[in-house]
């Protein structure tokens, strides 16, 4: 009796195991618990290739309007970008954009980096943040656009902006949007704490933070994220830090000054606020952080010009919030320094079969007022294209999120005009990762903030040396 039951159960089980084995086979790649070949995933590029739908012949996210025309593949992650692409495709008979979103920031760069190493698979035109341009120029991944008529559009951009996208006498990307910085603040929280005017200097900012805390408010003044990367770099730059001297004309030499006075001043300032419990220390760009930005946990959001767009798209917002924009606090009110966080451009990759057509796309896609109106109103981009940047339309644009405040006129246009450029390193990603590690170590109390800055400097110098640079 028992043995018959056992037999039947065993058969049932065998089927179950069969199913289990099938599942194992299917999930072996994603499971990470597979066999030793998983270790080779790193060079196989399975993660990168698996969802890199953008490259080569893969389908486009947008509709092609003229099927016979030359197609140019584009990777970009701008919000509301599909309308801009449609606009371009409708107005061009001979060139059509085939756009796909290959991920934001690092996700896209990872894929691009893999295609460079593989020698194929890159799009014709790629959206890159200005800070990573040197990293890709030094790998010969981008085309000099001077050969394809970049001069024609040069006058549409300010000199400093054009310079940020040039190297070795060439122009490697056509600027799109910028990230001049300002301070977005909760007027209602300020008023409840008796803060009548937004702080204009960092001293006032610290005093306001104290006042906010003393008033018993649940909010803290701001967040100091250890993984702030470009945000932290911008704050350091405002205090006079110029961490890198890198001239792509002389690409084996680099000067590194990450441990300068400006950086230490900023780090000491913020860690003082952290110690006093006046600011938060949440990691940036996590779900927690996003919610805290809008639910009244922070009274200010030190933001780039794309920040308002980011903010108004977040879930869980406090319905009674009253947001206003003000200029970024200054170290010396008499001598204001404007800084930039983010901003991006379109570059043509060296793998493009038709760089001429690709250059047309890079030059013209954000080269009309219609395109920019979509970019500004739906994508919340800050234009670097002068015809729209200097227009009355842009200056007088009222933002409902800020109660109708003309934030461009009040804050960001001035910040953009005062920005003098910044030099990034050709190993920016490494430097940012180390910055995150060191700031976190300091936050954990493992070392003094200034020591963290010194260690960061040493790590980046060592890395640059190991990469064959002569470090001055």
């Amino acid at each position, binding site marked *: 009796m*028992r*043995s018959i039951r*056992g037999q039947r159960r*065993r058969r049932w*089980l065998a089927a*179950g*195991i069969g199913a*289990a*084995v099938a*599942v*194992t*086979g299917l*999930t*072996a790649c*994603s*499971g*990470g*618990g*597979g066999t*030793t*070949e*998983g*270790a*080779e*995933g*790193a*060079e196989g590029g399975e*993660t*990168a290739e698996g969802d890199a739908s953008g490259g080569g012949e893969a389908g486009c996210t947008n509709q092609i309007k003229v099927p016979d025309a030359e197609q140019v593949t584009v990777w970009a992650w701008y919000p509301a970008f599909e309308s801009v692409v449609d606009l371009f495709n409708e107005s061009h008979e001979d060139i059509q954009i085939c756009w796909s979103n290959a991920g934001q920031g690092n996700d896209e*760069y*990872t894929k691009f*980096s*893999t295609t460079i*190493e593989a020698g194929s698979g890159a799009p014709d035109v790629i959206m890159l943040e200005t800070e990573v341009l040197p*990293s890709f120029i030094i*790998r010969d991944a981008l085309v000099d656009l001077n050969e394809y008529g970049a001069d024609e559009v040069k006058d549409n951009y300010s000199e400093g902006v054009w310079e940020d996208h040039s190297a070795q006498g060439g122009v490697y990307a056509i600027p799109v949007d910028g990230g001049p910085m300002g301070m977005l603040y909760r007027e209602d929280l300020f008023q409840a704490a008796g803060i009548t005017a937004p702080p204009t200097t960092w001293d006032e900012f610290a005093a306001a933070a104290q006042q906010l805390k003393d008033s018993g408010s649940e909010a803290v003044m701001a967040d100091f994220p*250890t*993984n702030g990367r470009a945000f932290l770099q911008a704050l350091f730059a405002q205090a006079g830090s110029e961490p890198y001297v890198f001239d792509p004309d002389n*690409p*084996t030499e680099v000067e590194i000054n990450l441990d300068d006075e400006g950086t230490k001043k900023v780090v000491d300032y913020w860690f003082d606020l952290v110690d006093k419990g006046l600011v938060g220390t949440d*990691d940036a*760009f*996590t*779900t*927690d952080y996003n*919610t*805290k930005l809008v639910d009244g946990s922070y009274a200010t959001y030190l933001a780039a010009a794309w920040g308002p767009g980011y903010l108004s798209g977040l879930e869980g917002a406090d319905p009674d919030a009253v947001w206003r924009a003000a200029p970024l606090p200054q170290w010396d009110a008499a001598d204001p320094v404007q800084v930039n966080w983010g901003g991006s451009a379109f570059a043509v990759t060296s793998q493009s079969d038709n760089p001429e057509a690709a250059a047309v796309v890079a030059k013209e896609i954000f080269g009309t007022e219609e395109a920019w109106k979509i970019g500004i109103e739906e994508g919340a981009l800050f234009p670097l294209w002068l015809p729209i940047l200097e227009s009355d339309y842009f200056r007088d644009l009222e933002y409902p999120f800020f109660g109708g405040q003309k934030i461009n006129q009040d804050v960001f246009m001035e910040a953009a005009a005062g920005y003098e450029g910044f030099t990034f390193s*050709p*190993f920016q*990603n490494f430097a940012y*990762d180390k910055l*995150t*590690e060191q700031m*976190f170590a300091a*936050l*954990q109390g493992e070392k003094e903030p200034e020591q963290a800055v010194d260690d960061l400097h040493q790590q980046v110098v060592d890395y640059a040396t*190991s*990469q*064959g*640079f002569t470090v001055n």
Partner: protein
Amino acid sequence: MSQTLSVEGAAPPARPTTPAPRRRNAPGGVARARQRFGWLFVAPFLVVFVTFLIVPLVYAFWMSLHTKTLALGERFTGFDNYAQAFSDPQFLQGVGFVIRFSLVLIPVQMLVSLAVALVLDALTDRLAKFARLMIFVPYAIPVVIGAMMWGFLYSPRFGPMADIFGLVGLDAPVMLSPDNVFAGLLNVVTWQWAGYYMIIIYAALRGIDPSIYEAARIDGATNTQIALRIKVPMISSALVLILVFALIGTLQFFTEPQILRSVAAGSIDAAFTPNLYAFTLAFSYSQFNYASAISFALGVVVFAGSYLFLFLTRKKSGLS
């Protein structure tokens, strides 16, 4: 590889040992013809195997013998990358972490899955069937999604931790803080994999002839004695099998830390595990050559670890 192994491990006694082929007696011509046909049948698999495993492996090894720096370009450097890898504090720190992690994780996982499998084997009602399925379900959830889900459960703002600890008046621990991240990951991995190992052990338990239990009972053995003295020794080869799976999987730990990095950038750095380090080197810092060397160096560690383990357990495993 894992498929065949798990079937073998699942029901070792049911598999009669095949006598060694008597090649000497067969006429040489026929054997050769047979061999040719054999290759033909293996060919489809072989093509995939060579294209997607052997060739990339050889290419990666070739890459690991070169060095390409941002400023100076590529050149042949022999085993320099390996010398660098085994003296790279970040790599060694990662290796140290995964070894410590395996030392804690594997016993915990084995005890949980063994205990559950023994209980489920002793029960025969519907509840047992249901429980078996529910314990297995986490394994059916893709690892990436599982990790993201735990990211939310651990979140101080969205997760239930604050509420649960609030009930007894305690502050909830931040599970992904540097001090707790070890335990946090331990929990995620155990949750995900214990069910899978439980099924393997359970299958092995069902393969035991029930008459042995009857004999034990007639001799006066209690249920506990049957479980510990009869069942466990008889499934030791399945236990060794899951140990090897767990060991290899843990030494290559990647997915969970990679996913949770985005919510705990401080606790999980770029070199948290060796695989994560290789990934970062290759794709964030474009050091493909050094990343290849790190991967092979990790391969050496994994191979040494698994081999040592199999050697030590060769009597129990039946895999010798």
